[in-house]
């Protein structure tokens, strides 16, 4: 009876839990790497390190250049982190799909292995 309960859970709520875990994993990766925040501020200056434009054209151009560098640094750092998050998310998706597909096969595998063990 209890084995029946186990199988009932395995092919019911258990299987759904695997899907839910995959979703949670992807959300966790997105949160860990601050994905929405980084996308929103992708081109923002790095840690607000900026120069304020002076009165002369030369000073304005220099400030513009400095700020461009700050934005470029910010963009590069954020892009690297976003790419890392993307790679890890892809790995998580692959692992999740494999888990979802393999999940129903586990009980079958046990039966098959026992039969193999008896007949080998």
């Amino acid at each position, binding site marked *: 009876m209890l084995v029946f309960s186990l199988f009932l859970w395995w092919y019911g709520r258990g299987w759904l839990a695997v899907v839910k875990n995959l979703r949670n994993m992807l959300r966790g990766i997105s949160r860990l790497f601050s994905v929405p925040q980084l996308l929103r501020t992708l081109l923002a200056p790095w840690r607000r390190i900026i120069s304020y434009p002076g009165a002369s054209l030369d000073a304005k151009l220099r400030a513009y250049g400095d700020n461009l560098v700050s934005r470029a640094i910010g963009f590069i750092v954020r892009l690297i*982190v976003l790419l890392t998050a993307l790679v890890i998310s892809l790995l998580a998706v692959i692992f999740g799909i494999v888990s979802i597909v393999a999940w129903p096969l586990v009980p079958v595998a046990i039966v098959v292995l026992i039969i193999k*063990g008896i007949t080998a």
Partner: protein
Amino acid sequence: MSSPSINLRSRRARQARLGHLLGRHTFSLGLWLSAIFIGGASLIYATSYQRLAYFAWAVGLFSFMIGLWYRNDLARLPVSGSSLDQRLSSDALGRLGVRQTLSPRSVWHSLRDHWQATFLANHLLLPTNTIEQQLSTDQSYMDKAWQEAVRLADLTDSPAIEPGHLAAAILNTSPAIQTLLKQLKDGNNDVEQIVVWLSRLLSSQRATEPYFGGIGRDWAYGFTPHLTQYGQNISLAIEQNGAHYGWLTASPGVQSIKKAFAQGDPAVALIGEEGVGKSSHVHALAQLILEEAHDRNLEHHQIISLNPSLIVSRAREPGELERIVVTLLEETIHAGHIILFLDDAQLFFKSGVGSFDITQVLLPIVQAKALQLIIAMTPHDYQQLKTDNAAFADLLTPVVLTEPDEAAVMRVLEDTASNLEANRQVLISYEALREAYRLSGRYEQDVAYPGKAIRLLEQSLTHANNSVVDTGSIQAAIEQTRGVKVGTAAPVEADQLLHLEETIHQRMVNQVRAVSVVANALRRARAGVASPKRPIGSFLFLGPTGVGKTELARSIAATYFGAEDHIIRLDMSEYQQPSDVSRLLSGGNQEKASLILAIRQQPFSVVLLDEVEKAHPNVLNLLLQLLDEGQLTDTTGRSASFRDSILIATSNAGANTIREHVEKGEELEKFEKQFTDQLISSNQFKPELLNRFDEIVLFRPLKSEELLQVVGLMMKEVNSTLANQNITVELTPAAAQEIVKAGYDPRLGARPMRRALQSAVEDSIAARILGGQTKPGDHVMLDASDLTTTRESG
């Protein structure tokens, strides 16, 4: 209400029992076993034992399945119906055996090892075994218990009936346990409150981990090196140490601050008395912002509390202080995600030792809405700021924090107790929490709730008995810090109280009735029979000068409050003008004679109002309020309690009448009523004033034999002074008579006696010591002839 049904053979009940049987390590054990078997099988497969490898793989996979099943299902079976077996949590249901007879005792026995049942029993200070012995074995009692468990689960918004609910329901429905709790002064309500506390703990344990923003959260904001140096990042502390302000985040105070910032207000003045929880509200706001603020004005914002002492200590050169402040403000503006918190804000708004005024620097910045600021201050300091710098004060959005009600304070105390129990390895009974609330409310008037109750609870830890903080620990803490006796009288002290008259008579001669009246009042107060909303006792002492009125007041201070200096003495003849009322009520420091200031400094005192009849009627009206309500309100609106004091007013009014009656041989009790009526009819006292005293006590003039006893008491004092030199002095009866003769004055009673003794005995002994006639270890017997000074002066 129909009794809920339970089917212990249902599939859910069987699964719950299996889960209980497997235990909480099943998941990790399952994973380990699967790793070992699958790894081992792979090694075996490489050899010739392939059949064994297949079985090992199968076992490994099965262990894996069981581990996952336990973790995702058996450990917390979902609630799926209204019948008991569907609604009981797997923890509770799994402990009930299929063949078990369900009686209160058997169910408690099944639950008693569960931490929730232990939590309940521990906080009631009832051993689980004692509870079990008291419970009935009658199955019919369970119907009520099940209904109560359902009620408690509903009360705490819990979908499942947890072991704590069931355990509490058994206690609440057991007549024997109820009797036991009543004997221990614990009511039914405490069990319910502990369950609510337990449910809150469960919710916080099961809450999903909060999301604070991830690794890139702060990359769009500026660095804050100086702010980090001169302040404390409250948000960071919450991130690192965990969030503990769950329910406070939803409080009106925190929501008001959030709303003010969300609307674009730059600065909030958080106004509340000391102890009301201003800092806690700011911590709760920091947690709220970290967890769920999606508003642009608050998202990813961090709260940094500035440390004024550190800023002042680092400013060694002139002008450096201003430079530091400007740097900090610039950094805040530039960072773009900092809310500055100025705790004890008055230190930032006035110049003095350890403080400095930054309003002029802040004013343009706040006007331009360039930063966000929270300023915590008391109502008094806020009024001061409005007076001193109205332009700046007008820019602040005031959020007023009022003292929370009892339920909210108890919730704070429960959370504090949980932290203290975890960090200090103690157990705090629920009754102790209630006592902390009660006693801090009564004796800590300078600080507001919940601060004062928390402080008392923390102080009581040092009085824990075998790591248990109970009501006795709380009482001991308040007794030590406030110098008042609040606990049940110990046998020795009870004996002292019962024989109070004898103790007082060791230093007072006669006045038997006065001493008896006062002793009865003190016993009533100590036994908790007297009204807690009035002074412990209030007496009007009437009688001639020098008969022991002041001495009795001193004796009371020494006996009840432990020292003679626990006395606040006011000469009421100095309060004869209407304007003197404000002098009595002044709350500031400038009035040395202020009664309010004196009672705040020493609330556990005898308040002695000498010559009360000479005070102005306005002052006497104040006395009416004091006797009625046990408190007075000072000129700034703050009240001061006299509920822990003994009020004694003395008067010589009618002294001659008393003397005449006594000389006729009448007993005091017989003419007391008539005498009081005379005082009223002669307009010396208003009836409403006399009626408000607990007792009007008449003192009679001392007789000559009593004056001899007074001499004896004074000689004890002389001998006590000479004890350092190891010299003792004794008077012959003739010498004592000589002193009475020299010192007695019918108008002044025994008062001149001390002077007479001083000039006769003390001078004589001094001359003997200096002349070498008396040496250490000598016993000196003085006769009348030795008291030359007395004779000369007499």
